[in-house]
């Protein structure tokens, strides 16, 4: 029996100690918001927070979480930064298929906790482990700036929300 706290709730799992946290979450805790993309810490789709730190749950054995706190996408709206990031993702209409976005959001929340005013370079560094095959990166950058409350030149520049399209639509 391994005992962990998931999203504030104490849970016990009777699984082999080497079972990755991802599969405990998905197949045993029935929390399917954390996604399986590669299983080798290469894509970030499975990112969760372990005691506040972002980890790739697909390669982290459940034994590593014994006695610790796991936060998943399902509970990130209880966090004030988490909520802001989710809202920014909505405002920027970031998601396409959405499959990577749980992991993107968990990485973005961790970034903003460390750097409340991130530069583009800091964003690139923090988010480079999260693949989006749909290619939503420019909107992810804009959304992170937005969640940080930055209306900097950089945020404006990378924003997809200039009026390029609209002028033409109305023409």
């Amino acid at each position: 029996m391994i005992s962990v706290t998931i999203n504030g709730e104490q849970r016990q799992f009777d699984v082999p100690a080497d079972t990755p946290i991802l599969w405990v979450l998905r197949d045993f805790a029935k929390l399917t918001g954390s996604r399986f993309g590669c299983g080798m810490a290469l894509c970030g789709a499975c990112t969760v927070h372990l005691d506040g730190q972002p980890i790739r749950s697909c390669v982290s054995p459940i034994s590593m979480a014994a006695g610790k706190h796991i936060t998943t996408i399902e509970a990130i709206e209880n966090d004030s930064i988490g909520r802001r990031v989710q809202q920014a993702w909505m405002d920027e209409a970031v998601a396409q298929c959405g499959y990577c976005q749980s992991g993107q959001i968990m990485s973005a929340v961790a970034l903003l906790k460390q750097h409340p005013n991130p530069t583009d370079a800091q964003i690139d560094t923090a988010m480079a482990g999260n693949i989006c095959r749909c290619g939503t990166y420019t909107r992810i950058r804009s959304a992170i700036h937005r969640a940080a409350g930055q209306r900097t030149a950089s945020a404006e520049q990378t924003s997809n929300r200039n009026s390029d399209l609209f002028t033409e639509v109305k023409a």
Partner: protein
Amino acid sequence: MSQNTTIQQPSVMLANVSRRRFMQGLAVSGALVMAARWDLAMADDSPNAAQKYGGDAMPHGWVDNPNVFISLAADGKITLINHRAEMGQGIRTSIVMVLADELGADWQLVSVEQAQANEEKYGNQNTDGSRSMRHWFDPMRRAGAAMRQMLEQAAANHWHVAASDCLATVHQVVHEPTGRSLSFGELAAAAAALEVPARDSLRLKTTDQWRYINQLPKAYPESNQQQPLAVDGWDIVTGKAKYAADVEFDNMLYAVIARPPSYGSAVKSWDDSETLKVDGVVKVIALPTASQPSAFEPLGGVAVLATNTWAAIKGRNALKVEWDKGPAGDNGRYDSSTFSQQMQQTAQLPGKVVRQQGDFVAAQQQANSTFKAEYYAPHMAQAPMEPPAAIVRIQQTDNGIKADVWTSVQNPQLARDGVAKRLGLQPTDVTVNCALLGGGFGRKAKPDYVFEAADLSKAMGGRPVRVQWTREDDLHHSFFHTVALEHFEATFDQQQAVSGWLHRSVSPSIYSLFAPGVKLQSDMEVDQGIRNLPFDIPAIQAESGEAPGHVRIGWFRSVYNIPHAFGIQSFVAELAHKAGRDHKEFLLQLLGPDRQIDPRSQQVVWNYGENPELYPIDTGRFRGVIEKATKEAGWGKKLPKNRGLGLAVHQSFVSYCAVVMDVEVSDAGEVIIHRADIAFDCGPQINPDRVRSQLEGACVMGVGIGLMTQITAKDGAIEQGNFHQYLVPRINQAPKQIHTWAVNASNMSLPLGGVGEPGLPPIAPALCNAIFAATGKRIRNLPVGNQLAS
């Protein structure tokens, strides 16, 4: 088409003898019945059939009955059905927006329901070919308008007044003379009981009455604040969105399969003694190898079934399988680098002529100078972020045996028919529930993984089985994007104008998946950029050279347009450079005066399934996107050292796209993309923000195609196993800025074009042309990889 070729070409038979007869032949051979369905999706060109185009030509066509898509409740809530697959293009929002707008619904009261597979009821559901909005905008408008008129009629009946005095506004009907009103909810039951008005009596909204269609969403400062948010947006950011692997049945088993490393190889023997020791492993089952060509049949292999995914993965890791390469034949020795050399040799010899205009040989004889170049584009895997997954359960019920499927597929009806066939059931006994797709890009148009789950559930006596593909499975066993060698020759006349153009394309065909011995590209494939070349050149000759498929070849977002556009648009830039001309001016001159070319005059057969009269090749629209992209990018401006602009344009899926990339190459050979300017003309844009997001996404994927993405094979096996070997762009490699520019976005005199795919083909050539401008180094082999390292 040339009559005197000596090369045998089975695919020609498909197009010219009778496609319908060919399909009947396929249907007889069981496994290949799938191919017939795919082929039916193309324009039916058999001589006796009335020529059909667009949505009319698709299996089960379209449906515009409002009662199929709209249900009104007495409390005012409205449920709208989306019957197309959602894979990130936003169709669940866009289709419903069209219905809701014509209907006059208040978005706050609308909910969306995803249709199960049922083409008899909903019309065609095969979500590929950038067709959803192009084929469904008109039927959805009619369905919405019909229901609106039924509500108005119901109100008129209630008040005993003329229907012409009753007007639906937002979620209510107003009696104009008196100002009385009834809500949609109050009218729901009475409206539903009325006859659906005839199509010719429908009053569609005028464009100025649209509240959602052709509007920008709330987040844009200029928005009218009415355009709805993505229906799945909040579910996605809270992790509640359901993809195939998020669904579970009681007593379900989790399966992972060891598949043959080479296409066609079989299981010789296996040892599962260690596997069965793994905690949670329940059973190991060997599956038959599909005979080649395998169409959408599963590859076979050995399946490990367990009580959870991790146990199944561990069990497979512990499995020892010996493979028999014999049945794979040449595939068991497939080496992609040797193959590229073979393709290059083939490209030196004449191929099968697929378009001939003027006399290229004479142009060569009279030429002042000639220029040749060859371009190579490798295999790729679609690699959607969500690897394939499917669940099947078979149950004995009071009404006989029924199968339930949960999966994410682009073509649900194909999954339904295929599962029914292999289980000996009727399609009506099979329910296919459609989860969201975590990306598709063509991979999930092939439901082999659904069939695997059906076979395993059957083997387990009907117990629910979820088949989970790992990333390694996805990369090793995809239906790969083709590999291509594009050979070009051009002649310049005495005035330094291009007088002749030869394009010889050597590339395995997707048809090799469906019929034995196919070595030449099909009509559909050469119609993706080769035949429909828009240039005003006196002598144009296009040829297809033989290349067999040694892996499963399948469609990948924008398909053969990728290598064809890369070759054509790189070669044009090289010609411009050789002629000492500005690339943009040279390209515009090649396009010639604004005109509409009948694709049939170019020997085009397919035209993306669209009516050539409605959808000609419009050189003015080419010019329009080129002018827009170059203007916004500041074409011709002075740039610092090691930095350059590159241009490319391409028409595909009846839409036009031009791109200018602003690229810097560091001394170490690293490519930094400062900015992409994308001008796009797909005619009217129904959901402009989702059009924009598709262009942004295609741009990023195209940067990958240009810089890093490739699949290679050695000794018959794919060399890339996961994202450390199969490289796709990450945020730090993506363009710093992507600017999209719409052309003709509100021009309702144009028919709708495709959106999901046409943004992709021009990216890699624009990128490579920019690299040339920055460094003087010409990239002829994709991807760039370390070719720029000094």
